[in-house]
């Protein structure tokens, strides 16, 4: 009887552990290890999001050829869900993938978390490969202490995309909309008068670009190297003034990016210009306004601003089970010319790998831009974008600035007061942590 009792107890314990391991994968790694299944090193788990996942899917056959013993498992969730789920995984330390894809918007927050491997350390030695990548993008993937936590896969050199037909109708040249901000706004008034089209989708777009004016290597967007808040500087004052001037002159359609009104504005020719990453051309061609093919052109951002819009990175969590294979995958996605070119063709994502920027594909004419060889321009832009360090409170500061700007343009709040309030709010939130 006592034998039977012991057997029941141990069976119950085994069931409990097995059940818990099944319900909470990753919570009981020891329990998971005893399950006789494929060795952990044979599966590489990559957490990603659309459309970046398409690049990984396109590269999967190449991965299989290079690493037949390591199964590639892609875990793709919607953009916001992916970053939320990765935040939770970092919080609990469970359910972390071997490779984590991170969008530029989250890179500051994630890089500052301390939950990722410093890829400058052996055996990865990312520092030795730093020259292979566009300089500013490598800086974005680094922590203030120099640790390289993420490697760029694609970048978004900022450009001004404009409707040439509308500009021609208004008698406005490309030089006029790119020379400086006042010329850009003056041209906008002429375009509005002659065609009825708005100069830009939203005044906030102008503000976001203008506050990057004059940034140099090593200077932060919202914080300096010592963590001091910079939002009361002349850079921000000018950006707010320009945004307010555009709104007061009725030059923006008040359409936020990625909304229905924004997309409809492009389709119906109601928006004449848009400042964004070069990848917008692919989005316009594929789904936003394919019927406008040939009418668009790409130009440098007004006022000589060099800025990046978006970009994707790969990082290895400290708790990743298969770090060696993870690094191999990251190198495949970011430093293999063939894969980077495929990404350009599949996603219109601009390569972060410098060698690919010299590929003949960069000289090809783009039909959607009326045959313009725009990639040459984007390549030049990418080479001259300053290397701006990211801060883990950048996203928070963006939210505060956005809200204060709205108070300026919608409620008539004084710019100096709005920026002082923004500084107080950012400092208050950042100081606690």
């Amino acid at each position: 009887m006592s034998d039977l009792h012991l057997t029941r107890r141990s069976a119950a314990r085994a069931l409990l552990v097995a059940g818990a391991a099944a319900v909470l994968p990753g919570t009981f790694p020891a329990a998971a290890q005893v399950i006789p299944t494929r060795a952990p090193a044979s599966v590489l788990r990559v957490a990603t999001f659309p459309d970046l996942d398409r690049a990984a899917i396109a590269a999967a056959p190449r991965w299989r050829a290079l690493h037949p013993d390591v199964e590639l498992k892609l875990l793709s969730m919607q953009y916001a869900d992916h970053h939320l789920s990765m935040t939770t995984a970092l919080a609990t330390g469970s359910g972390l993938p071997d490779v984590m894809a991170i969008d530029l918007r989250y890179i500051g927050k994630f890089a500052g978390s301390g939950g990722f491997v410093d890829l400058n350390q052996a055996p990865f030695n990312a520092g030795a490969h730093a020259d292979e990548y566009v300089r500013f993008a490598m800086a974005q993937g680094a922590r203030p202490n120099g640790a390289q936590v993420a490697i760029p896969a694609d970048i978004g050199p900022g450009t001004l995309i404009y409707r040439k037909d509308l500009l021609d109708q208004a008698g406005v040249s490309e030089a006029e909309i790119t020379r400086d901000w006042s010329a850009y706004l003056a041209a906008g008034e002429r375009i509005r008068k002659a065609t009825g089209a708005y100069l830009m989708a939203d005044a906030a777009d102008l503000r976001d670009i203008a506050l990057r004016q004059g940034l140099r290597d090593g200077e932060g967007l919202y914080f300096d190297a010592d963590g001091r808040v910079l939002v009361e500087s002349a850079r921000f004052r000018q950006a707010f003034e320009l945004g307010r001037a555009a709104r007061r002159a009725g030059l923006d359609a008040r359409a936020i990016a990625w909304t229905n009104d924004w997309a409809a504005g492009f389709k119906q020719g109601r928006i004449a210009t848009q400042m964004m990453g070069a990848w917008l051309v692919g989005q316009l061609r594929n789904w936003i306004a394919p019927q406008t093919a040939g009418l668009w052109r790409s130009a440098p951002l007004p006022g000589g601003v060099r800025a990046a819009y978006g970009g994707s990175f790969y990082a290895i969590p400290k708790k990743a089970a298969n770090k060696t294979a993870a690094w191999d995958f990251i190198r495949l996605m970011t430093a293999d010319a063939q894969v980077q070119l495929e990404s350009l063709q599949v996603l219109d994502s601009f390569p972060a790998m410098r060698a690919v920027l010299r590929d003949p594909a960069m000289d090809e004419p783009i039909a959607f831009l009326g045959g313009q060889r725009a990639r040459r321009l984007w390549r030049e832009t990418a080479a001259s974008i300053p290397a701006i360090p990211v801060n883990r409170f950048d996203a928070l500061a963006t939210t505060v600035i956005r809200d204060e700007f709205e108070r300026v343009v919608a409620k008539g709040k004084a710019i100096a007061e709005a920026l002082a309030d923004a500084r107080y709010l950012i400092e208050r939130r950042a100081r606690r942590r």
Partner: protein
Amino acid sequence: MSSRHPSPIVEPSRLRPPRPFRLPPLRSRRIAPYLFIAPFFALFLVFSLFPLVFSIYLSLQQWNPAEGLHTMHWVGLENYGYALTDPWFWDALYNTAWFALVAGVPQHLVALPLAFFIHRRVKRGRDLVVGAYFVPYITSSVAIALIFTTLYSKDYGLINAALAELTRIPFIGSPLAAFTAMKDGGIDWLGDADVTRPAVAFVVFWRYLGWNLVLYLSGLQVIDKDLYEAATLDGATEWQQFRHVTLPLLKPMMFFAVTLTIIGNLQLFEEPFILVDGEKGVASSVMTTAIFMYRTAFSDGDFGTASAMSWLMFVLIAALTWVNARLFGRDPRSAHGKR
């Protein structure tokens, strides 16, 4: 021992197969009820009690989840003080109170007489009418967002198109045209700070009107018809019957419905969140405390303060529910009996 000295005689009992294990009948009867209710308690513990207790614990800690569990550290009541001195918390509280009044009060002011009217006058097709009012309540938030963002669209929305048509009508046309011209040719319902809050409040009103209507109808159906007959014989008009018979006897249901509205509106999240893009500057004008909590936790990564805010809201909701109980909570029939 036995292997060394095997017994030449095998006892019959040893040849029998082992009996399957069974609990004694009395013991199994004692255990069975606990086994049946165990799933509920297990789920309750994991998904209700634990998060509740953990959120109290979290409200006393400072923690950025992206930095891992080990970065959590004790700050005592600091998060509560931080929340109470944060200007955005008070802005969010103001927005929440605004929605509670502007979207909540009309729900009852309309639902109550409407329920009385349907109860007294609509005999044929009543279920259809009530069902039509109730449909928004059970409609998915995503569908509502799709419909209303289309209706509210500045350049392509039906509401602005209808307003443009109305400008042709004499008398009302001119002021309306002047107003729309002031708004740059069309009202930006979900992008202009002046109109976004009322536009969202209307959706909240529209969505929960049917729910309150059903509550009041069910309350009306249990009021004794003899009371109305007696009132009619005494010469009471319909308004007097509503004022002196219906309203006093509906007080318990009003208490219930208003309590649900207070709780619901102070936790308002879905409608403003899905209708107004968080990227829009105007999003701050519809930022309720629930949205602010979400932003604090998931965008700013400050789970401690977000938890503290949730407990502050709990205290506020409890206080308002108590006030509501003082106003409507007493059953008029029992009060009459006491007299």
